[in-house]
């Protein structure tokens, strides 16, 4: 342990690390941030492999422990790939982060399997989960975690969790969250109360509301149709009565001409068709 600690004294701090990387990579280093004690270096995708190589081979850096590599959904801009490296000799951690070119449609990044053996499965997993293709990787297929014929990229935000879609959220049931009008109730907090619905659950509630709305619309539609049918029936009845009246009139006016009787017949058959 003592040896490790002695070398720890010479460890580079984040600024020095960034300066060192900039010295070698120049414009490829887009910036850096120390967040919650973690030093993250943002890179242009072109400098990705080179940065990893530097991190491993540069004696002052010596990031020998390959911790992990994974993707992060970056909304419209596509995906980030993050690699976490650790140095057993200096005790430093370096996070390399890059935005994968190709957006959401065709994300491609160079592979660092040549540099770190552990990147092999990590890149396969990233491919499996996000669909990021790693150029130079010996074989991303078959998919490592999902089944071979799985369709879609599960960790993308536009991939929805089937179990959540298949089952209604239990909290929207009467009488808890929706009032009679289908509005989400803003609850007044009570003792021991948990906070209101989550964002997701609000969406669910909205969904449920939409279903109720849909049902209402359908019901109204049904009612409207029923009313229409009733109106039609009434109309038909009226016409029938009119017809009967006409027939009665015709019967009464037996003396009417024969052509008038022929006119009445087609009108009757038309009505049958309409019904």
């Amino acid at each position, binding site marked *: *342990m003592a040896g*490790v600690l002695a070398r720890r004294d010479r460890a580079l701090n984040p600024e020095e690390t960034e300066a060192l990387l900039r010295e070698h990579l120049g414009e490829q280093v887009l910036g850096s941030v120390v*967040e*919650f*004690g*973690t030093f*993250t270096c943002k890179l242009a995708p072109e400098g990705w492999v080179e940065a990893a190589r530097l991190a491993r081979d540069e004696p002052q850096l010596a990031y*020998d*422990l*390959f*911790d*992990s590599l*994974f993707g*992060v*959904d970056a909304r419209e801009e596509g995906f980030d790939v*993050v690699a*976490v490296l*650790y140095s*057993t000799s200096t*005790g430093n*951690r370096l*996070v390399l982060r890059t935005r994968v070119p190709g957006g959401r449609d065709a994300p491609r990044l160079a592979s660092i399997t040549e540099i*770190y*053996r*552990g990147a*092999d*499965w*990590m890149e*396969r997993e990233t491919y499996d*989960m996000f669909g990021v293709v790693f150029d130079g990787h*010996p*074989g991303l*297929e*078959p*998919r*490592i*975690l*999902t*089944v071979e014929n799985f369709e879609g990229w*599960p*960790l993308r935000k536009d*991939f929805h*969790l089937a179990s*959540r879609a298949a089952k209604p959220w239990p909290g929207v049931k009467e009488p808890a969250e929706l009032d009679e009008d289908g509005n989400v109730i803003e609850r007044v*907090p009570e003792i021991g109360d*948990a*906070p209101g619905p*989550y*964002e*997701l659950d609000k969406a669910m509630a909205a969904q449920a509301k939409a279903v109720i709305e849909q049902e209402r619309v359908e019901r109204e539609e049904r009612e409207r149709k029923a009313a229409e049918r009733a109106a039609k029936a009434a109309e038909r009845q009226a016409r029938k009565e009119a017809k009967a009246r006409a027939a009665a009139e015709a019967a009464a006016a037996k003396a009417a001409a024969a052509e008038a009787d022929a006119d009445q017949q087609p009108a009757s058959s038309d009505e049958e068709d309409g019904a």
Partner: protein
Amino acid sequence: MSDLSTREKIHPGTAPGEDIALEIVGDGDFATTDMTLSIGPAHPATHGVFRIVLELNGERITAARPVIGYMHRGFEKLAEYRDFRQIKALVNRHDWLSGFSNELGVALVVEKMLEMEVPDRAQWIRMLIAEWNRVLNHLMFVGSFALELGAITPMFYAFRERDEIQYLLEAATGGRLHFTYNQVGGLKLDLPKGFLAESVRLSKLTQERLPDYFDLVLGNEIFQARTVGVGPLPPEVALSFGVTGPTLQAAGVPEDSRVTEPYLKYDEVDVPVHLGENGDSFDRFACLLYRIQYSLHIIDQIHDHLPAGPVNTKLPKMVKAPEGAAYQRIENPLGQLGYWLESDGGRTPWRLKMRTPSFSNVQSIPYLLEGMLVPDAISVLGSVFFVVGDIDR
């Protein structure tokens, strides 16, 4: 994925996963074909749904290809649909033998993002339970590794110990595997009365019984014949694979988060680390056994240090991690567990990456198996300690 150089050597021009045409090996009348032996997904040696495809020439392994994912449950996706309290109950299931450590990792990373002060007592109790959890886990592997080598008895002894420890932890947490005892900012409840006395007693008892394992397994000549020199892992290769935990310590790398990046109160106790020399199966197992001993040593120290006080902090109604990303690493029983928590400020994580020790450790298996015999494959599979749920998540 097999180690590529090996694959390239033996089956040039084939892609991983592709069915490899059988080749004639050897000359003249002794020419034989390679046999593909698929160990798993359901096989006694894989203790879980894990498959490893071996290419055999006789009983000698020419290539190995682990096939994982049979237990993939999409934890990282599920976590994105859950708040932190729910995630805590979720993560103690990916490595079901280290439930407490897993939830501890989540609690720590959320606390880190919230910059939350956790009461001292909570931290010490967390350490206590985490170390007991480590003992539990290691006992399991002591038993199972010996069982895989054909020694059935250590498993029973290990389970006897495990049962008592599980009962102890159940008294505090209510669970035997999935403790769900952590919460952001501390612990759910304080320890019940009598827990510490029982903990002291069990620690003493386990330390008394521990020499049995040394005698029965580690000192056994047959065991040594089966493990010494089997599957040696050089430190630089181990690091390149991201191998951690007892497997890395066996290779002689003094890397243990409790020492190198102390969390909780590990900087206030003495944490010894046993280092191996060759990184072979024997060293890996020895590291595991010594880790039990040292965990008990830490537990004894915790008994002496445990302060009085509260065990949790007042939480806001809704625990929301601030925007940003944080990485927390803890020493899980099987190696380094890392949680990368990226938050958009909402109640659920934007991305929770679980960097599990088993995933990285198992990656090194093809490298280790090259040129070994089938029984050595068992020895290597048993000594590169992994939990299948931890690989597949």
